[in-house]
């Protein structure tokens, strides 16, 4: 049993920290928040500087954590162009990996994941977007909602229905994954504005109006799409846990700094506020350990859905808890500094990539089946 990261990863963490502190200035963060503008220049800079390294999942995770610690909106934006890539990596043909994935890794393309639908939320299997086979094409109709990078990505790994389920109650059958390009005819997107937080990220609704998709853009096998996506969520949830740990740590940093400076100024700091600091610190530490454990299973090719859901569920609740507690502790100071942005950003953690409720369903199902977090 060993709780230390290898030296190279510790070094990497430090580099990302330096990069984020240097590049994610308050001015930059505030501007992208106010204007709801995607920071494309930061995405490029991060990629060029070698900070972003999607080939090592440990680095991806630590990079997300450290960037979100400085600014969640910018941090997520810089690390999300690859979102959904694991599906292509694990199940895409050589053709698809070459045509699409390789260009994402080099920053020439951005990608997105199209799963959620309007009114669908966590109920993935209930989706309505349909792809009908017609010759060597699929004809795609429907829409997707809350799609990250929806207005800017070049293509989307998209879950669609290619067949009715053979048994009506098994709605997760008959789903497939297609790669849909933005410049395919009939594709359009509407940017969603007025988000509470993570406003630097781009979110949109996608609309498919008789979009023709070449047959070779089918990822893996027809009918297996649901399993591919669930497998992906088991991966991506660890990264959401990393976003959450970053937010929690960022809020904790600010409260520690605030209380210490109060004391230095001779303003007495009450036990009440110190206790809140302790609770934030303890929950953040616990979240990070759950994340590490989930990662150490997952990145060693023995994913454990129980611990993954625990990590995502607990860390996201901790992010919201820490940001809110930080606001409470710092009062007017929090309201007039970047802390309020952390507070707004944090709430989405409990919602995307499976709400807290969905994580609890997964955990209890595994537990009652006799699987545990070991």
């Amino acid at each position, binding site marked *: 049993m060993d709780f230390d990261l290898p030296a190279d990863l510790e070094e990497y963490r430090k580099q990302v920290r330096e990069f984020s502190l240097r590049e994610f200035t308050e001015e930059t963060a*505030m501007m992208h*928040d*106010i204007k709801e503008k995607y920071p494309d220049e930061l995405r490029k800079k991060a990629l060029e500087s070698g900070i972003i390294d999607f080939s090592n999942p440990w680095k991806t995770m630590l990079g997300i954590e450290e960037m979100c610690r400085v600014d969640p909106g910018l941090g997520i934006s810089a690390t999300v162009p690859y979102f959904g890539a694991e599906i292509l990596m694990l199940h895409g043909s050589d053709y698809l990996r070459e045509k699409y994935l390789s260009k994402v890794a080099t920053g020439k393309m951005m990608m997105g994941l199209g799963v*959620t639908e309007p*009114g669908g*939320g*966590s*109920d993935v299997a*209930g989706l309505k977007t349909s792809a009908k086979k017609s010759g060597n094409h699929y004809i795609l109709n429907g829409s997707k*909602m*809350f799609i990250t990078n929806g207005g800017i990505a070049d293509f989307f790994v998209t879950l669609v229905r290619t067949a009715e389920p053979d048994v009506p109650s098994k709605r997760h059958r008959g789903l497939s994954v297609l790669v849909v390009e933005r410049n395919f005819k009939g594709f359009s997107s509407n940017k*969603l*504005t*007025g*988000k*509470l*937080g993570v406003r630097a990220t781009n979110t949109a609704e996608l609309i498919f109006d008789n979009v023709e998709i070449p047959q070779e853009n089918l990822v893996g096998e027809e009918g297996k799409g649901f399993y591919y996506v669930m497998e992906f969520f088991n991966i991506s949830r660890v990264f959401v846990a990393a976003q959450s740990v970053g937010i929690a740590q960022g809020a904790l940093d600010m409260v520690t700094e605030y209380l210490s400076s109060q004391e230095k100024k001779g303003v007495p700091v*009450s*036990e*009440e*506020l110190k206790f809140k600091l302790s609770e934030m610190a303890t929950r953040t530490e616990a979240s990070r350990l759950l994340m590490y454990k989930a990662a150490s299973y997952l990145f060693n090719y023995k994913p454990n859905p129980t611990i993954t859901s625990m990590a995502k569920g607990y860390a996201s609740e901790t992010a*919201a808890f820490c940001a*809110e507690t930080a*606001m*409470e*502790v710092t*009062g*007017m*100071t*929090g*309201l*007039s500094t970047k802390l*309020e942005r952390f*507070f*707004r950003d944090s*709430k*989405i953690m*409990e*919602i*995307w990539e499976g*709400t*807290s*409720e969905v994580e*609890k369903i997964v955990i209890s199902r595994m537990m009652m089946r006799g699987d545990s977090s070991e």
Partner: protein
Amino acid sequence: MNEQLQMMMDNVKQFCEQAIKDQAITFEREGIPESMFQAFRDQGFIGANLPSSMGGAELDRQGYDAILFRLAEYSPSAAFYVYMNNSIILPLLSGAGMNDLAGEVMKGTVRIGLASSNLLEGTGDHDPFLSTAVFPSEHMIKVENGKVLLVRGKFQHADRKSLGLRGLGVGMNSFEAEESKELGRKESLEKLMLGSSWEQSAIFLGLSKGALDKAIEYTKVRKTFNYPLKDYSPVAFRLSELMSDLEFMTHFLFSEEGEQKGLMLKARSSDFSRKATKHALQYHGGYGYLEDFGVEKFYRDSVALSSLMFRPEGDKKALAESIYGSKSGYL
């Protein structure tokens, strides 16, 4: 709730349904329009609690709080606007003998901003500072060197949207002062803030009700995994618990009196509003995260108002001391 109070609640509700409901989102995006401030005056909201000598309606505490409660259900910004005029600005002006200016405020021809950041425990005596910025406005009340000042000058509106009370343009606004007049010592303002625990509670509870009602309605219609959300026990039970707590506190608001009890309600309704609005947002899923759905504003405002109106240290210490009957909670 007696008949008179119920009637007041019904009337304000009717006004809100007609005049605010569909516009509440515009308030958030663009600020409350001037016409609305006129409507508040015409409805008798401005001055509702003040003596007739000041042109007020002399409503009792509960009647006044019914207005704040209802307004907060639809727009916490609107409720805070009425509160800050009736409970802070007008009494300050009147206390300083500036009855003419008070009259202008009552009529709506003059509007005055509040520099929130240094009213209570805030550290920010710097410029720009967090303030309301009710445009068009040339006046600002702020605290400086222990004095409450009425400053006349020019606002420079902040770019950045604030966390809360967006309808009032709260943010890191700049203000270029041209002249200033003393309205009293800082203590007189603190007394007004501390003496309006019931009013502040009314706003916290009203906005909680606004958020919870939305959640109840949404969970009736939104389906997941083939069933409406309300059919799931964790959703239905949690919302029921929150509605129950709201019921106890609302009943308390409209049937009890006294300083200690007001402090109790303020402390707990402030905490409660954060909890209730957070759950209300959560049960809206991704849609809750979007301005359009009108639930995230309650979440933001509950936290912003907690910081603006509630002193997490001072008020809780005051409450503890009233319960223990002696110095306590100071370590």
